[in-house]
């Protein structure tokens, strides 16, 4: 801001106004994000239960956490959900984008239809899918009414399968968003590149595979970041769809943390699980940010 070559007529206000304007949000970020991260970190080393306390307990909460079956179910669910959600949304999104990129008619309408779920909150998505997948209300009942009495689809209430209903609802919500990101990327590719490849004799799949998708690498990584972020934070979708149930069969770390910290009076344990989640996210985001920053500095 205040470089030595700055003309003298820039007075006090010009120099301080930007800082003044930024100060409140800076302060709020400092307190409510970094302050609370620190506080949460501290709490995870205490024996807090219903209310925060400051009795230092060392790693007790972490030992307790790692001994808890429910935590490992939540972690495993996160991997199942995260893997299928990220992979699935990416695959469906890219496929839809490529199909929409073929200059088909009614593209605008289709794009809106696919993108629309993104406009809903996960709570709405979760609730809608809860009704649709509920054996007594939705799909199964419909099929029974139509006469297919042997049809069963009880994943929502089946503890082995309930996490997969979360995957289905998540895919429905986010695939369109991935499609929009990739479609924008595809549209950014010079048409004549495709023409050149056609003259070179490449088939359409080969053109996409060898030329276009590699050129969309940056889009791929941004999308991966956004999806991973959604997957790790996923809370509302699980709460609205399965409530973590049946039992705790579809718990994920975020619902686990909420349950421990706010409904079961295990605040220290909740804080420890929150810290674990933060570490996981940091392990992914920090290298990404580092490489991005380095690239923009080199560019």
């Amino acid at each position: 801001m205040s470089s030595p070559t700055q003309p003298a007529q820039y007075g006090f206000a010009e120099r301080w106004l930007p800082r003044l304007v930024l100060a409140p949000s800076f302060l709020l970020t400092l307190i409510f994000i970094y302050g609370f991260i620190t506080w949460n970190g501290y709490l995870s080393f205490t024996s807090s239960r219903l209310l925060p306390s400051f009795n230092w307990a060392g790693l007790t909460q972490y030992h307790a956490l790692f001994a808890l079956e429910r935590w490992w179910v939540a972690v495993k669910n996160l991997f199942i959900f995260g893997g299928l959600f990220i992979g699935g949304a990416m695959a469906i999104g890219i496929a839809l984008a490529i199909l929409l990129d073929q200059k088909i008619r009614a593209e605008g309408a289709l794009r809106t239809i696919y993108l629309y779920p993104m406009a809903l909150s996960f709570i709405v998505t979760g609730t809608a899918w809860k009704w649709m997948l509920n054996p007594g209300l939705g799909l199964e009942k419909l099929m029974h009414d139509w006469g297919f009495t042997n049809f069963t689809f009880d994943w929502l209430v089946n503890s082995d399968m309930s996490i997969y209903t979360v995957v289905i609802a998540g895919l429905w919500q986010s695939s369109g968003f991935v499609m929009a990101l990739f479609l924008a990327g595809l549209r950014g590719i010079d048409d004549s590149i495709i023409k050149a490849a056609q003259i070179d004799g490449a088939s359409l799949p080969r053109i996409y595979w060898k030329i276009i998708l590699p050129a969309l690498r940056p889009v791929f990584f941004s999308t991966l970041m956004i999806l991973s972020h959604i997957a790790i934070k996923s809370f509302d979708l699980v709460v609205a769809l399965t409530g973590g149930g049946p039992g705790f069969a579809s718990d994920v770390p975020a619902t686990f943390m909420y349950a421990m910290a706010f409904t079961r009076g295990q605040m220290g344990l909740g804080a420890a699980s929150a810290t674990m989640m933060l570490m996981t996210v940091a392990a992914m985001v920090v290298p990404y940010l580092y490489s991005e920053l380095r690239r923009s500095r080199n560019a």
Partner: protein
Amino acid sequence: MGALAIKNVTKSFGDTHILKGIDIEIDSGQFLILVGPSGCGKSTLMNIIAGLEAPTTGEVHIGDRMVNNIAPKDRDIAMVFQSYALYPTMNVRQNIAFGMETRGVPKKEQEEIIARVAKMLQMDHLLDRKPSQLSGGQRQRVAMGRALARDPILFLFDEPLSNLDAKLRVEMRTEIKQLHHRLKTTIVYVTHDQIEAMTLGDKIAVMKDGVIQQFGSPQEIYEQPANLFVASFIGSPSMNFIPCHLAEQAGQIGVSLQSEGEARFVPLPNAAKLAGQVGKKVILGLRPEQFDAVENSENSLACKVHLTEPTGPDTMVLTQLNGIEICARLHPRDAKGPGETVRLKPDMTKAVVFDAETETRLA
């Protein structure tokens, strides 16, 4: 043998008719230029030749084959695009090799071809770079290299030099011409730049609004433009267009030129073609270099100089004839300063006459 024949090709996108009956035929080894203002359908025609678009009606023949139903890759052509269209994630070597890989050229042969092309275009040192690490001129070179590696029977160039700066453009122009001399492959070259058209082409097709206005050698197009559009499009500075009426004096058909209150009857060549049209409103076309500065008053007109634009070898003198601003290209020695008077004598042997209504050339 005919290398390329386009027979009555039309192209419409829905209700918009982009190409309205194109007929072109060139011999093997010729350098064909498609020139015209932007949006006139040059790229569309090029894409039809390449097979990237299908013509609405008409036929395209390459070599001795009718290629309407043959895929681009099987037409034995190579194309260079205005935006170069290099594959962004591949390095130069991979860019050149991509087509050969698709066609199943053996690895060893690929390497030989890449080496030969790189040598021909002096880009050995660029082979391992990505397109993003190249300058505009270098990308252009790579795009040409990719086309050369194919060794096709027909090269298609769609405004290959338009994205380069002026100096590089002139250099690459010369290089393309030399390349054509060496390879003797048939080339179709699209440009909106009339200088490129004149310097490179064996045959020029001047297009406007999806119609070929004239098809001929550069000299024909320059000296005998088919209509007002061609005359104004080719040549820089543009031809002067002087409105007048056909008149007859002492048995000769000519027009009257006026300047500074003085009127002079100048007879026209090719008067035979104008017989019986005396009194008709016409437009006399005179190129800037068809004026000479003279001292005596015979067949010359005194013109007041408005402005001069020295270019070095010549000086452009802006003045008026028949109330119209005209430009004369004079030797700097003869050019007067603004406000002074210069006597101009038009060289009527090369003058052209257009019908003022239909804009086609009468003589």
